């Protein structure tokens, strides 16, 4: 094979593969750092690296996603149960416009950190595949669990994972 045809073969392969990169944050990866404004005006921005040393549960949700709405009150209960043990719950709203997410919160107040990402930069960064997707991040900043979707019975599994990480597992 001549040098020119080898280069051409490489270019062909490169063109077909390079533009279809599907990077997704997986268990064991370091959680990419980010900063997002709060969904509520006047509240402080949220930065993930500021949570180092705490167990953080990040959930991507939207007001138009039925399983997300089902999971959020359950996460609120879980937050109250484990916050004294060092759990931080972060529910990132990807609603665009943001008002859709705010309307939901009027009916269902939540007590944890609520950033907003209407442009979808952070789901893109994390390679979110379905809605909702949640990431359990340990105190060392590595992702311990990635959970896609939310069905009946999932909350028990999430609670077990949180308990395991909080106890140093």
């Amino acid at each position, binding site marked *: 094979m001549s040098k020119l045809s080898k280069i051409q073969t490489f270019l062909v392969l490169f*063109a077909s593969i390079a533009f279809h990169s599907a990077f997704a944050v997986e268990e064991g990866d370091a959680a990419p750092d980010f900063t997002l404004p709060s969904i509520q005006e006047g509240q402080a921005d949220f930065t993930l690296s500021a949570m180092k040393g705490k167990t953080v549960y990040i959930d991507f949700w939207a007001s*138009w996603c039925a399983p997300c709405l089902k999971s959020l009150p359950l996460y609120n209960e879980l937050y109250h149960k484990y916050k004294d043990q060092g759990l931080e719950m972060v529910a990132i709203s990807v609603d665009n416009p943001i008002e859709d997410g705010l309307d939901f919160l009027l009916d269902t107040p939540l007590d944890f950190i609520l950033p907003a990402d209407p442009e*979808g930069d952070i789901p893109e960064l994390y390679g979110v595949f379905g809605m*909702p997707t949640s990431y359990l991040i340990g105190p060392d900043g590595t992702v311990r669990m990635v959970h896609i979707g939310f069905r009946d019975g999932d909350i028990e599994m999430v609670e077990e994972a949180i308990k395991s990480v909080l106890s140093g597992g």
Partner: protein
Amino acid sequence: MHKLHLFVFFLISVCMLSACTQVRSWERGYLAKKEMAWDPDSLEGALNDHIFFSKEASSGGNSTAGGGCGCN
């Protein structure tokens, strides 16, 4: 082989210039709206299906997956 490689490279490049795009799961808010469903009114949809079945002596073929939150 030279021409074949060029042709394949050209073909792939043209395919990438197409207007098809992938709707990400967090961008599906509009697709989840009631007015984007095939049958926003399920009762009316059931009535239409029944009329169709009566007239055509066949049914089905009028639904598809898609939209929603992409979680399934």
